[in-house]
């Protein structure tokens, strides 16, 4: 009897696995950069091409690093959440404008709001590749030492902000103060 139950047992395991699988989005690719130092970069600023923004500017404080583009529809949805967050002043938001046109990007900021401390302009998309970006928007939480601690793939929803990002930011700020 037991011998004949083997296939049932294996099948039960299979069903359990599939049930777990239903809860995952197969398109979401976890970043291997979590826990690693944020990649070096040095790019012209979006609004002031003569100035540069680099990794150094992110250090010494917990930051959000948000990758966006004016051609990206869901970035627009995200903007409301980011704007509110910027007004609350909890955490500075740095932007990486990805494969965009400078004028289009600046107009977009005028039209939909500008939550960013400053934006880097990554026209060729090279820096984004170094950060492992595969779709916009994406948002990284970077701690005071410049280590990537979390990556949000897709727009930041209020749920993700309140449940994941803000608690993490507060904890990291605590850590930095100590």
């Amino acid at each position, binding site marked *: 009897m037991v011998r004949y139950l083997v296939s049932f047992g294996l099948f039960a395991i299979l069903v359990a696995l*599939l049930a777990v699988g239903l809860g995952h989005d197969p398109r979401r690719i976890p970043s291997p950069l979590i826990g690693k130092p944020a990649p070096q970069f040095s790019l012209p600023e979006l609004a002031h091409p003569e100035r540069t923004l680099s990794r150094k500017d992110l250090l010494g404080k917990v930051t959000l690093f948000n990758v966006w583009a004016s051609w990206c529809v869901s970035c627009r949805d995200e903007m409301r959440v980011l704007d509110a967050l910027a007004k609350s002043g909890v955490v500075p938001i740095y932007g990486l404008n990805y494969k965009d046109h400078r004028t289009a990007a600046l107009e977009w900021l005028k039209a939909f709001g500008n939550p960013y401390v400053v934006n880097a302009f990554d026209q060729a998309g090279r820096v984004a590749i170094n950060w492992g970006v595969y779709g916009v928007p994406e948002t990284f939480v970077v701690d005071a030492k410049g280590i990537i601690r979390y990556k949000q793939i897709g727009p930041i929803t209020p749920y993700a902000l309140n449940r994941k990002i803000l608690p993490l930011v507060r904890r990291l700020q605590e850590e930095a103060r100590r």
Partner: protein
Amino acid sequence: MIPEVGQFALMLALGLALVQATLPLLGAWRGVPEWIAVARPAARAQSLFVLLALLCLTYAFLTNDFSVAYVAENSNTALPWFYRIGAVWGAHEGSLLLWASILSVWTLVVTFRSRSLPPDFTARVLGVMGWVSVGFLLFMLIASNPFTRMFPVPLNGRDLNPLLQNPGLVLHPPLLYMGYVGFVVPFAFAISALLDGRLDAAWARWSRPWTTAAWLFLTLGIAVGSWWSYSVLGWGGWWFWDPVENASFMPWLVGTALIHSLAVTDKRGAFKSWTVLLAIFAFSLSLLGTFLVRSGVLVSVHAFATDPRRGIFILMFLAVVVGLSLLLYAWRAPTVKGGGNFHVLSRETLLLVNNVLLISAAFAVLLGTLYPLILEGMAVGKISVGPPYFNTVFVPLTLPIVFLAAIGAGVRWKQQKLRPLLRYLWPPFVVCLAAGIGFSIWYTGEVRALVIVAVVSAFWVMLLSARDIWGRIRRNLAGANRWYRVPRHVLGMTLAHFGLGVFVLGVTLAGTGSMEKDVNMAPGDSVSLAGYTFRFEGVTKLRGPNYTATQGAVSVSRDGHRVALLHPQKRVYIVQTSPMTEAGIQSGLFRDLYVSLGDPTGGGAWAMRIYYKPMVRWIWLGALFMALGGLVAALDRRYRLTVARGAAPAPRTPVPPAHPVPVSPGNP
């Protein structure tokens, strides 16, 4: 109005399916003939109502009834009528209706072709099939209704996914589902036999033609799908080990194992409990495939729009159907007694080896398909399992099958003496070895072990199959029989094995001999590949019924003579603006010339991908041979228990000889 009829037909069908699923099973259990008698009429009525629903949906498509949400989402007035028929199963809801309809077709066929079976057995079979119908009809009515109305009614539909606008859509899903769903019949036979407690050789005999029929459709369906992706996707591949492809391939592998194992159970009464388990597996994998395609747990090219709630329903259904079947199996199988004895060298042993290899191969495909899911479920990273994995693991597991298939057909049941067998085999083996090695080295220009093994195996199975048939014909010529009198199941098997050889040869030679070039070409440029000169003549604009296209013209010449003018296209469909490639192909028995158009690269130049693909048609040719073999075998008279009216007096010995005398290595 018509959509409501369809909706109503589905509800009626559900009611009837419930009757079909309960009364006959109870009747067979309690021995109530009246309840048993309900099985046929209920099953027929249920099936007809499901088919009526399918007709209603087709009608809605043909008449552009955009008040039906499913039609509005998947059709358009500009869509040609034959694609509107294909669009009926072009997305989730409709293809589910196709699933149910094909189940109905099989149910109908069972009701008509089962008169010779004991009524209680038929009642159980139809009851089990009824439960499957109940599941799918419930699913459709609860979570995937194709007849849901939409308000306000849109002026026009959102058109069929451009990827699907291909003749393949009209053929591939019905054929594939005929195969996939067809495994429900051997499954129902197996469950009935388990319920009955009489798992015997008769059950195996009854199951054989059904299994072979389902298998032949599945073979055709997979082949058409592969041909379709070859001509549309533009990367010149014919198989990508995509999860959805694997979902149809696993039942095929297990179905193939089942066909062979049924042969042993039928002829020798052996391995009954193993065979019944395979019958359960084959259908379970069909259900698993349905789950994988529709739940969105895996990323795939042709996954349907996904919705986890649907996934939950199918998973629950899968768990109940397969779980109960396996429990029933665990309860009943231990009482089954093994059949006759056999020697180490016998056809039984070889068929067992075939089963072990096929099941290992199916396991490899299953593991590769589900592994990303497993790792993600255990939160240990995310990986991709792609063609390099499958090619590495799958080939060594399956090549021995090709080699053994040739031998197995000539080995006797029960006991085969080694020396006559060797005497029978060595001359062709030497020929194949020499020819295979010589040919491979000439063809590839180098010594590549895997190519040599594959080519030798392919020659081997082709040669021995041909010789087998030839031997029978010769003995017929010498004897009293008409020369073409070869038992159909033998002829079918031999054809299928021959097809396997053709297929392997095609895969190997197309795989190693393909050449490709990715080039930027301006009009007037030419490039040479494999002795052919491809000259880009320029592009023109075209308008199709529901798309605009840029069509390139590429003339191909060889030694100064023009051999082909290819027209690769890049289409933009008007409603869903995604660009589509349509490769320009000139096919031939020994080589395909294939061009696909990329993006313009400025200055009138285009990126273009050019392929020379030798022997690629043999891949599908091989599959055709296999399917043809299946057809011939399924039609063998020995599976028809009724004797044709007006035929010559039935033979005195009703059971066909248990040792169909092979082109006999035993008695030279």
